[in-house]
Structure formats: C-alpha cells, structure tokens
C-alpha cells in the first residue's frame, strides 16, 4: 500500500489548533501561530511594493526564506510527530517517496495549499501543482507564492538532503506558474541548487 492521499488529507484536516492557557501553541517542536491569511498576503504585497527596484529580489528572497526555515523546522516536527506516525506511516511502502507524498497531503490538510506531486525523480527533481493556495489572493505583480516556494524546497530538503538539521539549502524551488498571475494553477519545480530547471 502506498500513501493514500485523500485518506491522509481527511484525517489530518480534522485537527484544529489554538493557543493554550499561555496563549502559545507549542507543537511539532516549534511555537505555532494561526494568523489571518489576509494579513500575511498584505505584508508581502506592501513590503514588495515599498522596496525600490534594486531591493525587490532581496525582499522576495527574504519572504521565501521565512517560509523555508519555517517549513524545514516545522516539517521535521510534522514527519516525526505522533499524528504523522499514526496516519501516514502505516501506508508507507515506498520509503522516502511515500514520506514526501504524506508530507504534501499534510500540506493540503493544514490549508497551506491544495497541492500535490505531479513529477518526482528521487533526490533530483520534483514538480508540484497547486490548485488553490492563499497567496493566490495576494495583490502585486508577477509570480508571488513566496510561502509555497519556501515550503516545497524545505520538504524536499527534509526528504532527500542530509539528515535534519544538516541538509538545509541543498535544493532550490522556482515558481513557474501562478494563479495570482492568471495561470490555471500554480507550479513549483524543485531541483538541486545550481542545476538548471
């Protein structure tokens, strides 16, 4: 049995989180937060708009980096969590590929993006298609799913790079299509750094 995406998504989507008596959400070995998507989109849009032309790449890279480090550390907590062990691991028969499939099911279930793997060459390349994601609602110009770029890279690093925490920045993700730019879906391609897409 390989990972049954719909089963994983439905199981994980039932989980609701909120702050404890201290107003904190300690989960997956990090402190989580639950924020309005409109707030996050507004920050990305306005900080990009405020940046002068010569700084726009640096700002976009900073937004991707925030998502990447979030995804790398939180992602490790997710794939080693009890809930992941209970829901996903019993279906794993293809090792790393199935872990990655399960991770992207979690990706969908927690509302980051309705997305899935459409092409996977183990340790070399992954193509993700996203049919819905909150950054698709953001204002601005061009492809701007910074969060998704960072998370896709993080999950591939966790799966195929050196074991956590030594595998950071082994791969890189480029966005090639975006709903926010008029495409029917978002597309994200992860490759080894310095390799061509």
């Amino acid at each position: 049995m390989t990972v049954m995406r719909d089963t994983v998504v439905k199981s994980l989507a039932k989980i609701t989180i909120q702050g404890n008596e201290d107003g904190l959400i300690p989960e997956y070995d990090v402190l989580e937060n639950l924020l309005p998507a409109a707030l996050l989109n507004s920050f990305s849009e306005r900080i990009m708009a405020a940046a002068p032309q010569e700084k726009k790449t640096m700002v976009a890279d900073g937004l991707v980096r925030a998502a990447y480090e979030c995804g790398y550390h939180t992602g490790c907590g997710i794939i080693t969590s009890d809930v992941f062990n209970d829901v996903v691991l019993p279906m794993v028969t293809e090792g790393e590929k199935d872990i990655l499939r399960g991770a992207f099911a979690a990706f969908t279930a927690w509302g980051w993006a309705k997305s899935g793997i459409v092409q996977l060459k183990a340790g070399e390349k992954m193509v993700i298609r996203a049919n819905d994601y909150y950054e698709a609602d953001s204002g601005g110009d061009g492809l701007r799913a910074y969060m998704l770029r960072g998370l896709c890279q993080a999950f591939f690093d966790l799966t195929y790079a050196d074991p956590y925490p030594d595998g950071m920045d082994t791969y890189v993700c480029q966005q090639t299509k975006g709903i926010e730019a008029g495409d029917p879906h978002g597309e994200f391609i992860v490759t080894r750094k310095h390799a061509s897409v």
Partner: protein
Amino acid sequence: MSLKLDFSLDNETFRRYLNGHAVVMHSHHYLALITKLAEDLSDIGGPQLLKDVVEESMWAVLHDYAEKNDVTSPLQRCTVGREYYSVYGLGKLKVGGTENGGEVCLVRSHIDEGWIKKWGRHSKPINHFTCGYIAAMFAVAFNKPVKSYTVTETESMAVTGTEGTFIVTLS
C-alpha cells in the same frame, strides 16, 4: 474565555476559517524572519509597514467580531482583542487603559520567545507586530478608526527575557 470560536474548513479547498476569516498556521521561525526582514528594511520603513499591516488587518477582524456579536463596551471589546491574541498563539496580554491610552503588559510572547529561541536575546525591541495589534485593539475598543493610537514598546521581552511593556497614546 468569553470569545466565541467558530472554526470551519472548506472541504473543497481545505482552507481554514476562524469566525469567517481565513487563517493559516506557521511557526515562530516564520514570524521571527518576517520581523527581521522588516528590521533589515528599516531604511524604507519596514517596521512601521509591519505595524500598519497588522493594525489594519486585525482592526477588520476585531471590529467584525464586535459588530456581529453585539459587543459594545470598551472593556468587552478589549477582552475580545486580548483573547483573540491568545487564540492565535501570539501570547498573553494584560491590558489597562482608557480612551486616552494605556499600558499593555506582554506576559508570554510567540514573537519574542520565538526570536530568543532562534537567535538569543536582542539589543532592542522587535515586537512591531504586537504594536500594530494593540493599536487595533484600542481603536476597536473605543470605536475609532485605524491610526487613532500610537503604540511604543518601552520594555522588550526579546531584550530582557522577562515581560514586555507597551505604552498606548492617542495619535
């Protein structure tokens, strides 16, 4: 807690909602790096931009809740803001003040504690996010528009490792 929490899930897109507003989960790494990005862009007003975005976004959420739930008194509206802050996982606030301003004590803090976990203590206050949040909370509590209050972080948990203090004044 007096806040009514209606969590819902769109079964088609799997987007999540809290009281009708789309919400998404991230970790302290994300907000720490967003805060640092704003700091690094101080020359173009990054910290103020972050405060403004949070104030405007949270004003809309808090005002919407107060209107839909017939929450009218300043005290009740402050409680809504304080409790929402905790539900979001941002920490724990103690709020005191009047229409003319006040003081807010930050007892626990996702942003400051997250910053310290990631990089250790800092040399200056960094919680621009909570400045914006408190400005929104006071504006909604006293039925005023955004930008009615100025909030200054006078003591920082990221610096001292203990509690934070925010002073609120009418703009």
